[in-house]
């Protein structure tokens, strides 16, 4: 029997009926990783023995008639920004190369409670800073559709391992588009939930007011199943929302009521938007129109300010969050001879050298931007100004959502780009987030789903955005789109 590693729903059916054991599913996943990962490089760690032991325990409990979790026996990978007690948590940085967390992130604990089988940790841009997974200290991840291309970032490994057919599900994190952009580049579905819908406890902080964990899978149904397992208030995260968690898998076979979809014309006319991406968005509009949705033009007047606002706020928060890596309590420490310390003294000299040695270029760049934006004389000019513009951006979304249920548009300006193409040009790399950072600044949920292929057979993503806590509506719309199209069933050749 071919084991369907491209569908959690199918796997769960086979596991429940006894046609497949958790060990067989896990072994199939591990075999697939062994076959694909030498080229794709999606994993920083594969937890073979622990995954097989977890699978055996699930099989035994199933044989004994004991209750099992909602993901019992499904192989899953988690981005290496999430703390795990049984695998290193590195953030793809030399700073945390051998770091073993003393606790599990809440989402990881919830996966274990749901009896998912965690097969490994996935590669990412260092500390989640990047749009290509080229800034990892442990080697690049390639795009399974074409190894000369990037898989996007920063959750490039989490997207690539799904696209490569290693696992049906993975967890990523999204600070400015880091779930949606790699999902678009790898031809899968990815959801950034509402800020606070999913606990951030044990998610290593990049920019705390923007970071959000979310599901990645081939389709909306599997994303909903995974979101069910991880969503919900968490006493360990004071910013998690004390709201009811609906069953996100319920009602995915229909759209309730009339669906009004907003189109931001300004985005479709943006300079640098690839014509094939534009065409895919136009085609998606027609799919929804044919399904009975009402298409409405809306304005987001401050969208030209999304990226500049993001590139003040995110580095400012990052420079603060990353100050904890000082080589004192954990992480890389460089020896400094007393004679080298100079005026700084031995302790400060050790901090400086440890951080200088262990952080990569992009992390250093963002710490420096943040330090500049927060420094005396510039704090009000840049940081406070960006926070004020952030409120205008949120108000734009609130106004738009008075007239529409969802917004539809591109995820990325271009299809997947080549390795090395943007790595030496930070501003070009930052513009990869042109259409995605608005959702993080406003805290709203947003989803990327496959919406076409280029003439070169590369995936194109379509983005849907919704008001806060309307993930169910997003998933319903994505499921409807996926019933009407087959882009989500396309696989790398």
């Amino acid at each position, binding site marked *: 029997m071919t084991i369907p590693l491209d569908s959690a729903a199918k796997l769960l059916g086979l596991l429940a009926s006894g046609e497949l054991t958790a060990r067989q599913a896990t072994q199939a996943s591990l075999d697939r990783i062994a076959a694909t990962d030498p080229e794709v490089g999606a994993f920083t760690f594969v937890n073979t023995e622990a995954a097989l032991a977890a699978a055996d325990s699930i099989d035994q409990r199933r044989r004994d008639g004991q209750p099992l979790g909602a993901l019992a026996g499904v192989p899953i990978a988690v981005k290496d920004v999430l703390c795990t007690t049984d695998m290193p948590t590195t953030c793809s940085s030399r700073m945390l190369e051998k770091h073993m967390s*003393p606790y599990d992130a809440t989402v990881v604990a919830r996966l274990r409670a749901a009896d998912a089988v965690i097969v490994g940790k996935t590669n990412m841009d260092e500390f989640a800073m990047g749009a290509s997974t080229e800034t990892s200290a442990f080697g690049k991840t390639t795009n399974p559709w074409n190894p000369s291309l990037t898989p996007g970032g920063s959750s490039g490994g989490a997207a690539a391992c799904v696209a490569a057919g290693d696992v049906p599900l993975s967890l990523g994190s999204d600070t400015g588009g880091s779930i949606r952009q790699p999902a678009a580049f790898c031809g899968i579905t990815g959801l950034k939930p509402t*800020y606070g819908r999913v606990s951030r406890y044990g998610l290593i902080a990049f920019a705390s*007011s923007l970071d959000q964990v979310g599901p990645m899978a081939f389709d909306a149904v599997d994303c909903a199943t995974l979101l069910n397992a991880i969503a919900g208030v968490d*006493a360990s995260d*004071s*910013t998690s*929302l004390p709201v009811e968690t609906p069953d996100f898998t319920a009602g995915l076979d229909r759209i309730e009521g009339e669906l009004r979809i907003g189109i931001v014309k300004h985005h479709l006319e943006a300079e640098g938007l690839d014509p094939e991406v534009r065409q895919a968005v136009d085609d998606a509009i027609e799919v929804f129109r044919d399904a009975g949705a009402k298409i409405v033009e809306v304005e987001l007047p*401050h969208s*030209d*300010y999304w*990226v*500049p*606002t993001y*590139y*003040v706020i995110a580095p400012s928060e990052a*420079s603060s969050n990353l*100050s904890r890596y*000082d080589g*004192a*309590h*954990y*992480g*890389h420490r460089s020896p400094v001879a*007393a004679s080298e*310390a100079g005026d700084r*003294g*031995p*302790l400060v*000299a*050790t*901090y*400086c050298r440890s*951080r*200088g040695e262990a*952080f990569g*270029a992009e992390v*250093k*760049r963002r*710490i*420096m*931007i943040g*330090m*500049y*934006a927060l*420094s005396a004389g510039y704090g009000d000019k*840049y940081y406070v*100004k*960006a*926070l*004020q*513009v*952030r*409120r*205008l951006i*949120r108000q734009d979304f609130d106004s738009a959502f008075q007239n529409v249920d969802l917004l539809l548009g591109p995820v990325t300006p271009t299809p997947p780009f080549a390795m090395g193409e943007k790595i030496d040009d*930070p*501003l070009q790399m*930052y513009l990869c987030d042109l259409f995605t950072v608005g959702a993080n*600044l*406003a805290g709203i949920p947003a989803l990327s789903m496959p919406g076409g292929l280029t003439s070169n057979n590369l995936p194109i993503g379509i983005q849907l955005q919704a008001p806060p806590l309307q993930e169910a509506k997003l998933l319903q719309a994505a499921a409807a789109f996926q019933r009407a199209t087959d882009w989500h069933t396309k696989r790398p050749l």
Partner: protein
Amino acid sequence: MAISLDQVRKLALMARLELSDDELGTITPQLEDIVAFVDKLMELDTDGIEPMVHAVETVNRWVPDQLGDSLSREQALANAPNHDEECFLVPPVMG
């Protein structure tokens, strides 16, 4: 806006980052470019707009003042680059 090499050196020390001369040479013009890019924000009149610090504008969340589990000393020291049986060991503050 011009950013001087001395300013970048000072920022690097504030950030506790030892940067080589090559790195300083690369990062200085990049910082200038990025600052010029974000200067676009100055086009907007934001007088009277309340800064939005966080996507979830909660006030304090209180938890019961009860003793709970915490990391053991062994766990807390497990990832330390250098420690004895009780404490993190670091270089002296003063030379």
